[in-house]
């Protein structure tokens, strides 16, 4: 078990800056995700930690020791690939024994550890299978067993679920998380899927264009995104153009196309400046007038109603802009028709003013 510290890490490919000055410390036993769109530098960062990409600028420390100069085989890191990278010319047993044989352990020791690893991932009985004879999920388990059996100091997972179909992905998500917590192994998980990151992680670093946009717990990332990229990348948000009408210590008033809306205050905003209000669609209530302190409540015309299974999506006209509300699909819910008006309400502090 180990902690990992990245300091001012950068990576150029030719003139392209793939990783731009990343600094972060990952705690012992932590499940840490690097989340971002493709090309944001998350996989490159992970591959640098593993030693597959050279570290030229900045440093990588594991337990306080700089490993930037070490070869991959010297780092004692377990890496699980997106395509699992099961050796196709070896059966499952030999795949898992690969790392142990390199360590020159006795045959008995290897045998008992391989069997324990197979049991740990629920693959006992698959010893003689080859890669072609296994499903994606089974290969995934073998890939995990193959790295865990060598008792790595940290576990790196590069989009390990993206090749699986949806139901299996859901199942593996919880399975991997449970395995990780029971082992207490420091884990860095790369994904573009916010659902995976939010479900599994202790902390998430949201990455964009080589930089870390925000680091926080899943709740912090979702509830308090600090910039527009994170706001739009994580979950869905209404992005409403507004003008600041009044500012006080406790909150501020915004003018959104003539509609006055109260919102939490943010450092450095000035009266009559243009700004943006971000608001999660699921925080907007429909059909209820909330005449309370700290709430916004208006009657707005409905443009569109879309049935989406677990929830219903309403599109309201808010001046020249649109406001989306998502309402849980309760049996007793009212479904006002498009063209009519309905009350929409949200708690003022669920909106956030974000920097452009």
């Amino acid at each position, binding site marked *: 078990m180990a902690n990992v510290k990245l300091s001012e890490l950068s990576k150029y490919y030719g003139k392209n800056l793939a990783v731009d000055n990343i600094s972060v410390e990952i705690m012992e036993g932590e499940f840490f995700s690097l989340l971002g769109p493709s090309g944001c530098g998350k996989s490159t960062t992970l591959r640098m930690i593993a030693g597959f990409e050279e570290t030229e600028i900045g440093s990588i420390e594991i337990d306080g020791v700089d490993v930037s100069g070490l070869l991959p*085989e010297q780092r004692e890191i377990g890496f699980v690939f997106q395509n699992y990278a099961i050796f196709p010319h*070896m059966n499952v047993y030999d795949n898992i024994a690969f790392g142990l044989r390199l360590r020159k352990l006795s045959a008995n020791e290897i045998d008992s550890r391989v069997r324990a690893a197979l049991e740990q991932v629920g693959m006992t009985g698959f010893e003689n299978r080859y890669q072609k004879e296994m499903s994606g999920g089974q290969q995934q388990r073998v890939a995990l067993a193959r*790295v865990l059996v060598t008792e790595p100091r940290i576990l790196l997972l590069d989009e390990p679920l993206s090749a699986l179909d949806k139901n299996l992905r859901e199942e593996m998500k919880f399975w991997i998380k449970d395995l990780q917590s029971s082992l207490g192994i420091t884990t860095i998980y790369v994904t573009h899927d916010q659902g995976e990151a939010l479900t599994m992680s202790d902390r998430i670093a949201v990455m964009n264009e080589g930089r870390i946009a925000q680091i926080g717990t899943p709740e912090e990332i979702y509830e308090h995104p600090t910039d527009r990229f994170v706001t739009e990348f994580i979950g869905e948000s209404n992005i409403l153009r507004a003008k600041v009408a009044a500012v006080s210590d406790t909150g501020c008033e915004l003018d959104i196309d003539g509609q006055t809306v109260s919102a939490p205050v943010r450092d450095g905003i000035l009266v009559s400046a243009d700004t943006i209000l971000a608001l999660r669609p699921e925080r907007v209530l429909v059909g209820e007038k909330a005449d309370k302190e700290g709430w916004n409540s208006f009657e707005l015309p409905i443009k569109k109603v879309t049935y989406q299974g677990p929830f219903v999506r309403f599109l309201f006209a808010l001046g020249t802009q649109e406001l989306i509300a998502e309402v849980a699909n309760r049996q007793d819910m009212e479904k006002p028709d498009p063209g009519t008006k309905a009350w929409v309400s949200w708690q003022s502090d669920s909106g956030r003013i974000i920097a452009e």
Partner: protein
Amino acid sequence: MSNDHLLASPLHKLGKTGRAWLLATPGIVYFLIFFAVPLAGLFLISFDKPTAGVVEVQWMFRLDNFVRFFTRSLYYEAAIRSAGLAALVSAITLFLGYPLAYVIAKTLNPGRNTLLMILVLCAMQLDMVIRLFGLMVLMGDNGLINEFLRWTGFIGETPLPLMYNFFGVVVGLVQFSLPFMVLSLVGVIQGINPSLEEAARSLGARRWQTFWKITIPMSMPGILAGMLLVFAISFSSYVVPTLMGGWKVVVLPIHIYQQIAELGKWQFGATVAVVMFAISLLSMLVYQRAAAKASGGRA
């Protein structure tokens, strides 16, 4: 839209596989007339009564020719020499070709990759006889190598025997077959997923361990195909042993030529050819087995 015109066409009645067979027909006919029939003829006359000057089938079945082949050391030793030469050449070509193919395969820059491929293919653009004359200029008794060694004083008047011997034949065959080996290997090496090698490294394997335990086994289909191809080329080569061996390295194709062109003994020439064909089939069988084993028991 109506498909009636299609339904009515006679081609439609053939069905999908039928139409595919129809397309393959010219190739099949060509193969039958110009390969299968002559080969069957060879088979027939190899079991015929040896009669000098007679080409046509006499329908006098006997094993005389085969008995002669396997009882005279002149012939069965030539068979061993031919197979040994071909095996040696395929091994040398592999050792020279693998690193070359590896470099080409791992060159990611598309322009540089194409350039390297062109360099390899360049070697195949000239006729073999012309290339062998080039080798003679280099390796003959008064060739560039011997002249250079004489000039530098490494040797006296007696030249190094580089040609008209086994060594010369090997050099000629390796030169001829190297591009085939490289071509067989490049695609296979390129197809090895880099994450397999990275996975091995991360599990603790050094560079050379990764190479031996992952890269080489994963290249096995290309290695075996290349070796089989080079074996077949070298085993059946007539021109190279003739020009580079100066009739001193007597391999089976030379016997065939002598029996048929010089002695008019078509029946015995055919017998040598049938033995060669059998050895080639055997080597393919060995290849098939080895390939099956290399790819984890399922080829």
